[in-house]
């Protein structure tokens, strides 16, 4: 049976893992390569490394971090953050990534999705969408809007419509972050996830708000998520992928249990 994926996300700045709480208040949480391996050992189905470094110097550090992390990582490995061109993507693949996650660059130039896909395959292109419910709309969920620049810039597009376009342009997966839930540990936005997941045929990875095992069960059931991503829950020993999956299995969610 195809299992629901648990994806461990490492937010990295200047070569160190940090975790933003609603995109601010960064706390140092360790070495990316070490944490990636620990998560994979504990049963994380995939690793995502999101680079939140803004500087040019930091980009070079990132490629080295990717290379070091990928060296003995044998589960799918995604790298995102700051990938603006097909050349940026190629450099990250060359360093050992299996997939790239693109966000604002895809909004600015949607052709980028197809360009990367043409060289590396659609399965290697994840379009990341940061969305926030639109409370001025009669349907705040279906009209949830896409934001960039850490939530400061409203693109004027809805998450559902942009996810559909990304799919039609050849995205392999959608990584949907609820900016309302992110960092709260109060649960995923299941309604938003369900709205996007039912609008596309490609997998949707839910992100933002993981705090308890029940939150994951909810986003797989009510949210129709194909995968769920969490960062802070796995750091600082809060919960391991292993214990999370064992509890999910008891709740009847199909997961790959680590040996």
């Amino acid at each position, binding site marked *: 049976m*195809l*299992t629901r*994926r648990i994806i461990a996300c490492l937010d990295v700045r200047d070569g160190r893992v940090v975790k933003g709480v609603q995109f601010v208040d960064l706390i140092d949480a360790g070495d990316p390569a070490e944490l990636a391996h620990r998560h994979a050992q504990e049963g994380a189905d995939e690793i995502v490394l999101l680079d939140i470094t803004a500087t040019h110097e930091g980009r070079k550090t990132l490629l080295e971090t990717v290379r070091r992390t990928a060296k*003995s990582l044998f*589960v799918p490995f995604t790298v995102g953050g700051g990938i603006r061109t097909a050349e940026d993507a190629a450099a990250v693949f*060359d360093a050992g990534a299996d997939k790239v996650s693109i966000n604002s660059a895809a909004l600015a130039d949607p052709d980028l999705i197809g360009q990367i896909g043409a060289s590396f*395959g659609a399965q*290697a292109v994840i379009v990341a969408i940061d969305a926030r419910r639109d409370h001025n709309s009669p349907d705040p969920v279906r009209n949830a809007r896409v934001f960039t620049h850490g939530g400061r810039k409203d693109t004027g597009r809805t998450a559902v419509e942009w996810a559909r376009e990304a799919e039609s342009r050849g995205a392999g997966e959608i990584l949907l972050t609820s900016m309302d839930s992110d960092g709260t540990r109060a649960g995923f936005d299941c309604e938003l996830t369900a709205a996007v997941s039912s609008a596309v045929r490609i997998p949707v990875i839910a992100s933002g708000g993981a705090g308890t095992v029940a939150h994951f069960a909810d986003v797989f059931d009510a949210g129709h998520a*194909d*995968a769920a991503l969490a960062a802070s829950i796995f750091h600082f020993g809060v919960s391991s992928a292993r214990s999370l999956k064992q509890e999910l299995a008891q709740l009847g969610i199909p997961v790959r249990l680590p040996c």
Partner: protein
Amino acid sequence: MTTPVAVIDYKAGNLTSVVKSLRHLGAEVTVTDSPEPLATAERIILPGVGHFAATRRLDETGLTPAIRAAIERGVPFLGICVGMQWLYAGSTEAPDQPGLGYLSETIERFPEGSEKVPHVGWNQIDASPKSRLLAGVESGEFAYFTHSWRAPITAATAATTNYIQPFASVVEDRNVFGVQFHPEKSGETGLKILKNFLELRPC
């Protein structure tokens, strides 16, 4: 002792992960985009992601006859993902592009229905106990898949996987092997399968 293995580069996708995992297992990897090194290759791996049409390059560069000749000599061959699909007569993904035709069937897309296509993620393989490639792999172990087209179950099927319907996730015929999933991304199970390929004796 290191095992020499030729990995074919036909400019479709990323070879980094495959090469990295083979080197991790101690293989001596030669990446080639030309047929010449295949004349003396002891093992051959054809990776592949993306579109079946990309295999056209194998025909254009003379790799197809070189692979066919190597298989006839009994050289162990492993196709991964599209590399497995290429062993068949062809695929409805690119009807004008023939496969190797080592296996006579045609690759078809998953039927549309309530389940999503592509099939992406970790799914179980139900392995034949007779398989040499899957020695030590138990039924129910997980592998990482990402594909929309799949192979039918035939006499050459060494493992099946169920998504929408059962399909052939591993094929094995003498020294020719194919895996629909990505062993280089399938954790310990995948490494075990690659190690088996590197160590098996040609029959």
